[in-house]
């Protein structure tokens, strides 16, 4: 992978539209992810189970050992064409499972390249096969087949839950869907740091990330100052060709997504939101980085995952009420709080219904060793390299007994 680093980054930029500067980071993370697999299986071999604590279990030594769970079927998403594949394939290889991977139909090339690299490294081809289904029936046939033992899915909630309901009996799964990540800004927050973090976390890959910053709650007294700083930072984002190393925000994955995002933004403005920045398509493929102020609570942008370069800012008077709104959706994933106060950081981290809370960082922060989990409709199970390896293995008990003890 190291020798193919530049090629892989350019592939991510051209097939996925991710700005090259971020694609380069994705490749580095993918390489590190493969390394994390090695680190994990070198250390986690099972555990000694204490027997002999009563006369019925005397004379025995017991331990667990790790066995592969069976055939893994991985269905992946477009937004990290290489690193998600690493997350859904390398743990299977590490665990000793045969794996069949179906990349997103819009970004299959990075996956094909990674699987080639695995084979070139000595993995017999049948242990990891790429499926490019000719239609969705073939893809569903993979997931619903009783010969698989584990289904790993990253993508939309609608598809994920529907496929889960069709799994054969006994097939386990991990689902990773989207969210509408909330951020609570406190009145003592470092505004410069907050704005820098939110400008990255709200517009990284044009917001097409499941933990992208979407709903920012700011104290009313701070709102004017925050919005002005945020607007000025977002206005400076360089939008355009993802293969240009200067570009910070690229296209959406399909032209119809540009249309959808624009419809949602227009509806929000019609419903009373103030458009602070953007609010328009730059071309049929690129949407301008957009800030909306105070969209109505029932606006689509306040309730559903936008998956585009749009951040909503809401003024609040009461912290508890803001946290309650942050927690009110059917989706829940990562969240953030910005404050200089330890008390506020600990109180709000506790009160937010999220699987991860970043203090003074954006909601899309992730390292691949971290547990990563959508709650409620946002997913099932826990991702992250170590957790995925554990999911793809069983703990087999071995109990040794001797008549001479």
């Amino acid at each position, binding site marked *: 992978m190291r020798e193919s680093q530049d090629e892989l980054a350019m592939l991510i930029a051209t097939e996925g539209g991710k700005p090259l500067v971020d694609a380069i980071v994705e490749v580095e993370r993918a390489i590190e992810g493969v390394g994390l697999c090695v680190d994990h299986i070198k250390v986690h071999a099972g555990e000694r189970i204490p027997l002999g604590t009563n006369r019925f279990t005397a004379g025995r030594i017991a331990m667990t050992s790790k066995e592969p769970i069976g055939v893994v079927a991985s269905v992946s998403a477009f937004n990290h064409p290489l690193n998600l594949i690493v997350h859904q394939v390398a743990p299977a290889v590490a665990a*000793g499972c045969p794996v069949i991977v179906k990349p997103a139909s819009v970004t299959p090339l990075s996956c094909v390249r990674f699987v080639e690299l695995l084979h070139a490294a000595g993995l017999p081809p049948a242990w990891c096969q790429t499926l490019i289904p000719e239609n969705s029936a073939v893809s569903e046939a993979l997931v619903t087949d009783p010969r698989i033992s584990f289904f790993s899915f990253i993508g939309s909630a609608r598809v994920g839950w529907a496929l889960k309901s069709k799994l054969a009996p006994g097939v386990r799964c991990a689902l990773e869907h989207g969210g509408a990540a909330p951020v609570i800004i406190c009145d003592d927050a470092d505004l410069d740091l907050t704005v820098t973090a939110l400008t990255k976390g709200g517009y990284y890959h044009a917001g097409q990330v499941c933990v992208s910053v979407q709903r920012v709650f700011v104290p009313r007294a701070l709102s004017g100052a925050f919005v002005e700083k945020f607007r000025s930072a977002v206005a400076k984002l360089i939008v355009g060709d993802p293969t240009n190393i200067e570009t910070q925000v690229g296209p959406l994955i399909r032209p119809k997504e540009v249309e959808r995002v624009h419809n949602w933004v227009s509806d929000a403005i019609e419903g009373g939101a103030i458009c602070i920045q953007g609010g328009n398509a730059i071309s049929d493929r690129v949407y301008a980085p957009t800030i909306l102020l105070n969209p109505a609570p029932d606006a689509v942008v306040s309730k559903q995952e936008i998956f585009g370069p749009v951040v909503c800012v809401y003024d609040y008077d009461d912290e508890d009420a803001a946290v309650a709104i942050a927690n009110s959706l059917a989706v829940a994933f990562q969240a953030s709080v910005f404050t200089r106060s330890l008390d506020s950081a600990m109180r709000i981290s506790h009160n937010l219904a999220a699987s991860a809370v970043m203090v003074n960082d954006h909601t899309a922060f992730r390292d691949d060793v971290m547990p990563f989990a959508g709650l409620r409709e946002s997913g099932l199970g826990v991702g992250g390299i170590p957790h995925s390896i554990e999911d793809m293995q069983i703990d087999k008990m071995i109990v040794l007994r001797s008549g001479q003890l």
Partner: protein
Amino acid sequence: MASEPLVVTNPFNGDVVGELATDSSSKLNNALAEASDLFQRRRGWLPLHERIEILLRT
């Protein structure tokens, strides 16, 4: 009958980036049979050290 290839385009400008042959249900069936056979043959499982070596070389 061979099915249509999958054409991959650049979402920024629509340029063709690549093209892949697509797999039918019989291809899927072969893949599943192969994978499932590998798993059933427990003596043929990849030992830990080999998995480590492969991942390190990747």
